[in-house]
């Protein structure tokens, strides 16, 4: 039993950190966030070269065939860099869902171009009710076609295919298919663009077995938690650096316990979120009995902790933290979007309650 990373896992993480620091530094993040889509073809090509777009997909579809732990490590570094654009949507969300749900022919059709860097994808799930429970989707396939509106679809404008969660099925839609209209939704997070996607009698292809969808969403959720952990770590690092350097009353503010203890809490929250993010990834990879609970624990904890870390980080930066110039608010904005994505802490506490209280599997003896 070893919780630590293997040598190759550590190397992947270190390389990812170097790659994002070199190819997507903060001035590039700021440039991309001012664009319509936050997508950059040149950056995407370089990420493809690294194997990132195919990281978890089987080699027969052009992927690298690594596991969920490796995905989580990559997402953590992407989160640290505040990587803009459709990487999460394409690989951790749509790609993971296709990988689990689709038939082999469909995987060939949709995963191969993702791995090769030619295509991007996303998942359209929420409707006006904004429920993260797939069972609440009202949109239904009628005679092979979809009609209706999906909201909060990440990166839809640069997606080649859109995976649609509908009643009694998961469907793939060509983003250029007739009847599709994609409009931006202006969200707080400037680095991951959201869209409303309207379908009007749009042809759709049913993907294999929709029963796997929940597991696909769990992979995406764990990946998002890892991305949050990376952002938390970056916020903590910047804040500690600032608290050492900024002087008031003739001393570094980091020497005051009111400041220092908040930094200690940021550390505790970041490390705890990391522990459970890694565990959730491993549980998904190993398909353990508690994998779904682990994902919910991870998202529950990270949703609250990520916000707390952002709050403390900006507070400790004082007036500087409230400026547009400071990078902290860019992370803070991403945090708010991520906090609600795939269910906030309240949503996941209820899911944990269903799994551990209602399922009746818990007894005091099984400690």
């Amino acid at each position, binding site marked *: 039993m070893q919780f630590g990373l293997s040598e190759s896992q550590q190397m992947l993480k270190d390389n990812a950190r170097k790659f994002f620091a070199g190819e997507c530094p903060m001035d590039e993040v700021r440039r991309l966030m001012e664009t319509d889509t936050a997508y950059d073809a040149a950056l995407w090509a370089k990420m493809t070269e690294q194997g990132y777009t195919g990281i978890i997909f089987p080699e027969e579809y052009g992927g690298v065939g690594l596991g969920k732990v490796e995905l989580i490590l990559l997402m953590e570094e992407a989160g640290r860099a505040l990587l803009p654009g459709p990487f999460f949507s394409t690989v951790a969300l749509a790609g993971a869902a296709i990988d689990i749900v689709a038939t082999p022919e469909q995987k060939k059709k949709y995963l191969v171009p993702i791995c090769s860097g030619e295509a991007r994808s996303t998942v359209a799930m929420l409707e006006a009710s904004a429920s993260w429970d797939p069972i609440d989707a009202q949109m239904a396939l009628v005679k092979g076609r979809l009609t209706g509106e999906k909201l909060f679809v990440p990166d839809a404008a640069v997606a080649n295919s859109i995976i649609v969660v509908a009643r009694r099925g998961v469907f793939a839609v060509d983003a250029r298919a007739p009847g599709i209209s994609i409009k931006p939704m202006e969200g707080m997070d400037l680095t991951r663009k959201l869209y409303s996607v309207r379908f009007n009698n749009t042809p759709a292809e049913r993907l294999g077995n929709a029963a796997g969808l929940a597991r696909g969403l769990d992979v995406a959720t764990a990946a998002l938690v890892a991305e949050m952990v990376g952002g938390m770590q970056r916020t903590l690092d910047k804040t*500690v650096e600032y608290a050492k350097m900024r002087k008031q009353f003739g*001393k570094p503010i980091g020497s005051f316990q009111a400041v220092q203890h908040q930094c200690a809490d940021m550390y505790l929250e970041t490390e705890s979120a990391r522990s459970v993010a890694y565990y959730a990834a491993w549980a998904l990879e190993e398909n353990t009995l508690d994998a779904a609970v682990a994902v919910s624990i991870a998202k529950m904890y990270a949703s609250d902790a990520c916000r707390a870390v952002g709050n403390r980080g900006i507070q400790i930066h004082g007036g500087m933290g409230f400026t547009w110039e400071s990078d902290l608010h860019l992370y803070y904005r991403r945090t708010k979007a991520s906090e609600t994505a795939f269910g906030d802490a309240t949503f996941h506490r209820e899911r944990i309650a269903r799994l551990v209280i209602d399922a009746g599997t818990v007894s005091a003896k099984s400690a």
Partner: protein
Amino acid sequence: MDLNLTAEERQFRDDLRAWLEVNVPKDWGEWREKPIEVSFPYLRAWQRKLHEGGWAAVSWPKVYGGRGASLMQQAILWEEMARAEAPPMANALGLGLIGPTIIAYGTEEQKKRFIPKILSAEEIWCQGFSEPNAGSDLASLQTEARLDGDHYVVNGQKVWTSYGWVGNWCELVVRTDANAPKHKGLTVLLVDMKSPGFEVRPLRQMTGESEFHELFFRDVRVPAENVLGKVNDGWNVAVSTLMYERGPYGARLHLLFKRNINRLIEISRTFLRNGHPAAQDPLIRQKIAQCYAEIEIMRLNQLRAFGRVTETGVPGPEGSIQKVFWSELNQRVQQVAQELLGPYGQLLSGDSHAIDKGIWSYGYLRSRGNTIEAGTSEVQRNIIGHFVLGLPRSY
């Protein structure tokens, strides 16, 4: 990263499980509720049995009576002990904190003299660290030891000593150089508690029990060969003990917490709230789920920390997050228990209406001490701030 048991770990677990099945006393349930003064000989006998089976201190080196087991195997042992509903070991501080410190800093003679009797529970150990005027600022302690020939003569007072009433030996931190800076004038002595001038008095705590004691020293003579580590290097020796206390020692607690939350889940299914089982109340569900999740995170933090200790060999200052996490979490869990139980939560063990023989009223009161004992939450946050994050000292 691989949390599956290795073949070796599985073998370890299976051997232990088989041993426990045969050896765990069947009557522990009856003894469990008795006062510790009554059950202590029982716990000593149990530890002796564990030691004879080679299970008392598995992570210690083989030459000192351990199995050279990894911390992961140590964690497996605690889990298996909980699973088998085994009694705790009598010499908890000797095995968990002081033994490892003696192994790290002691001379060969000291190891030969003390380690076997720690393992067999023949000699129970306590810590003499805190003083009335030296709590969080431990290094300012005043108990002094003056060299007189080949003995140190100790005068002063210690407080908050667990197992004081039954202790045979004490890991005592004393000031040996009053002129040196406060961290540089301390020495650790291993003191026989039967020495003339050594007095132990119970300290009654807010729960009503006397789990802790005060120690008084009046011209207590300690042979100079009982210095642990180097003279005036006692701070490093003491910190080594404290790191075991904050890190690995807390690791078994998640099993107790898990037992508590599982019991609360059971209770929530039968206790009514607004005419329905509390388990259906949305707010109670949220609170139980939060506790359940955090107890799991506590376990995972510890497993990850074990991985790091395995790499570096010793627990480090990051163990302070475990201490903060478990102590504050237990207070939240106990509060949720109180909310769930309503007016029943306050009932003491002697009351015929008490739920679970009053463990929840006791647990609530006892948990207040968690954020104070073994280094307050404030001190732990200072440690994280200064030693882990590299912020300037705040004091």
